[in-house]
C-alpha cells in the first residue's frame, strides 16, 4: 500500500499538537503528505466498527475536546447489543461525566432528529450517534444535513455504525476502526495496557485514504500514532531532525 512517508511521527489528533506537527512539517520535512490527519475543524465523521469491540467509541472519545459537553444518542438496538456508556469511565477520556447527556431513541428517525436538534445548540462540543446496521432513513440527504450543520455550528459529530455497510454518505471522513493488542502495561506484562486501534481511513475529502495505528495519550488528551519502534531514537528510517523532536 502506498503510505505517506513519516506518518509514524506525526500525531493523529489534534488541536493540542497541531502546532508541533505543523512546525515539523514546515521546517524539517516539507512533505505535504505528512500532515495531521484528524479534523481540526469540527465536522461529520463516520466510524464503522464491530459490536463486540468498544474501541470505536474510545477512538471517538479521544477526539472530543476535554471537559466539553457531549450529547450521546443511542439507538435501542445498540443499547441492547453493546450496552450503555458508563459515565464514570467517560472521565478516563478527560471528559466530565456531569457534562454527558444520553438520549435513547427508539428508531433511527428519532436518532437523526435528536442529533439535528443537538446541532441547533451551540452549548455542545460534540455529538455521538450510534446506529445499528443500515437503516433506510440514514441516506445521503440525512448525512448531508448533519455534515452541513456540524460545520456551520462547529460541533464535532461522530456517527458510529455497528454492523453497517459503507453505503452512500456525505460524511467528511469515513473510518473503519478495530482494536489492536494494547500497548505494554508499564508495571505488569500480563495486563492490558493503553488501548491501540487500527484506524483505516477509506474515504475522505482532503486526505489520501490510508491505514494508521493509533494510541490514546491520556496525559495530553490526543491520539498518537503507534511508533513502529518503541524507541524512536533507535529507528534508522527516521531523519535526524525527527529523532531529535521525538527525543524531547
Amino acid at each position, binding site marked *: 500500500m502506498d503510505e505517506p512517508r513519516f506518518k509514524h511521527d506525526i500525531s493523529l489528533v489534534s488541536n493540542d499538537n497541531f502546532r508541533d506537527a505543523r512546525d515539523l512539517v514546515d521546517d524539517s520535512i516539507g512533505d505535504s503528505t505528512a500532515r495531521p490527519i484528524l479534523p481540526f475543524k469540527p465536522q461529520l465523521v463516520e466510524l464503522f466498527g464491530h459490536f*463486540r*469491540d*468498544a*474501541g470505536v*467509541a*474510545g*477512538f471517538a*472519545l479521544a477526539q472530543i475536546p476535554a471537559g466539553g*459537553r457531549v*450529547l450521546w444518542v443511542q439507538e435501542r438496538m445498540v*443499547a*441492547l447489543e*453493546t*450496552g*450503555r*456508556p*458508563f*459515565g*464514570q*469511565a*467517560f*472521565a*478516563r477520556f478527560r471528559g466530565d*461525566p*456531569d457534562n*454527558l*447527556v*444520553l*438520549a*435513547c*431513541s*427508539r428508531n433511527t428517525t*428519532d436518532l437523526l*432528529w*435528536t442529533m439535528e*436538534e*443537538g446541532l*441547533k*445548540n*451551540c*452549548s*455542545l462540543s460534540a455529538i455521538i450517534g450510534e446506529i445499528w446496521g443500515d437503516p433506510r432513513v440514514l441516506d445521503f440527504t440525512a448525512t448531508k444535513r448533519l455534515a452541513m450543520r456540524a460545520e456551520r455550528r462547529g460541533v464535532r459529530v461522530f456517527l458510529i455504525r455497528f454492523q453497517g455497510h459503507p453505503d452512500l454518505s456525505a460524511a467528511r471522513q469515513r473510518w473503519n476502526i*478495530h*482494536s*489492536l*493488542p*494494547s500497548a505494554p*502495561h508499564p508495571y*505488569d506484562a*500480563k*495486563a*492490558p495496557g493503553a*488501548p*491501540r486501534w487500527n484506524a483505516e481511513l477509506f474515504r475522505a475529502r482532503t486526505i489520501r485514504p490510508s491505514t494508521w495505528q493509533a494510541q490514546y495519550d491520556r496525559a495530553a488528551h490526543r491520539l498518537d500514532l503507534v511508533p513502529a519502534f518503541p524507541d524512536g531514537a533507535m529507528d534508522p528510517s527516521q531523519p535526524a531532525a525527527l529523532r531529535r523532536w521525538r527525543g524531547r
Partner: protein
Amino acid sequence: MLAIEGRHGPVIHDANEAALRIGMKRGARIVDMRALVPSLRVEQASPANDAADLAMLADWSRRWCPWTQVDGIDGLLLDTTGSDHLHGSEQALLKEMQDAFRKLDLTPRLAIAPTIGAAWALARYGAEDTDSCTPGKLTAKLDPLPVAALRLERDTVQLLNRLGIKTIAELAGLPREALVRRFRKIEEKNANPVIRLDQAVGRQPELLIARQARPPLRVMRRLAEPLLDITGLTQILRDLCGDLKPVLERAHKGARGLAFTVYRVDGRTCSSEARTSRATRDPDHLASLFDGKLERIDPGFGIEAATLETVDGEELGAMQDGLTEQAEDELAFSQLIDRLVARLGMTSVLRPARRGSYLPERGEAWVPASEEDAPVAHAVDRSAATPLRLLERPEEAEVVHAVPDGPPALFRWRHQQHDVARSQGPERIAPEWWREKSTARLRDYYHIEDSQGRRFWLFREGLADDGRGSNPRWFVHGLDA
C-alpha cells in the same frame, strides 16, 4: 345519626332534627342511645369530607360577595360590606341566600351583623332563622343571648354559669376592671370572655381572611371559522405562546408544564401536554416543545377554539440577559433538554449520577436529565476501574480457565470464542449484605484482552468452595475501548 370513634367506642358526632328532638345529644355513646331508642339509624361520619365540602361551599358562596371564609366545622363567614346593595337590600340578600341554600337541600341559619362575633351569635342562638342587625340595635339584640353565643369553650361557659352569669347582658353589666383582672392571664380567645365580648360588640377588630382564588394562567383564541387543516394549528399555537408571555410576566411565573387544548365543533376536546426542565416564558421555546405533537390532534369536523394553559408553574422573576456567555449556554442547554424530552420522553434523556455502591450497576444510575437530583453522600468514584460500556445485564459466558480461581484462558460469549491474551485482576467486590440475600455471591472482576485486542470486563460469581451454590459462573459485564 352520624357516629364517630370516641375514646370508649363510637359516639354521636351529629344527629338530625328528629333525633335531637327525642333527646339524642352530641358526644353521647352510641350504645347508650341504642338502649334508649333501638330503632336508631347510625352512619359513619367523615369529618375530612365535610371539611372539603364546606370549603367548596365557601367558594360557591362567593357569588354574593368577594370575601368568604370557612368558620369552624359548620359555618361560613361572608363579608357583605358594600355588596348588599347589589342584591337590593340586606333583607333581599338574606332571602336570596336562603333560597339558594334551600335549593341545595341545606337549611341555613343566616344573620347579618356589624361584627363577626355578633353574626355568629345571632346565627346560632338567635330566635329567627334569618336575622339582620344594625349597629344601633347591636347590644339590644345580643343582650338576651346566653354566654355560649360569645364563641366560648365549654369550660368557660360552665365557669360563668357557676358564677351566675347566664346571659351576655349579665356579663356586660359586670365592672370591666374586675372582669379583665379575673381573665388577664388567659390568652386563648375561646376561654377569655372579655376578648370575645369586645369582638362581638366591636370594641376589638377582627379580620376575615378570605382564601385567594388564583385564576388559571390560560390564554384562548377563538377562530372566526372552524379550522379543518391541522397545519394552521402551528400558527395558532405560536400566537397563544405569544399571548401567554405577558400573562405569565404579570403573575411573575414561568411555565414548567403546558397543556394545549383544542375545542372541536362537535363539542369534543383534544389536548396535548409538554414539560420544561426549568421555568420559562420564552414563546419560541414553548412553541417548539409541541413540535411533532400537533400532528396527533384530530381536527374532526373543525376546530373552533384553542387554549394554552400552564398546568404547572414556578416563580420566575424578571430576567436580564447575562453578561457572560456561561448563563446563556446553560439556558440553551436546558432548552435542548426540554425539546429532547418533549419528543423522546422523560425517561429517554438521561445523565449519569453516582451512587454509594461499588457494584457497577448500582454505583451509577442514569437519571432523567430534566430533573434536579441531589448529589448522593458517599458516592463512589470508580472511573479508573470500570469499562467504557456496561451491558444492560451481565451475560453468561462459558469459560475455560487454567487455575480454578484464576483468570480465564478462553471464553465463549454470544456463540463466539475469544482467546484471552492478557488479563488483569481480580478486583473483588463483596456482595452488599444489607441489601441482598445471604446467598448472594461475591464477584471477581477481570479486565481481559482477547487475541485480537478487544477488551472485556468479565466477572466470576462466587468461589468454588464458598458454600453458596454450585460451581461459580462467569459473566461478561462490560466492553472496554
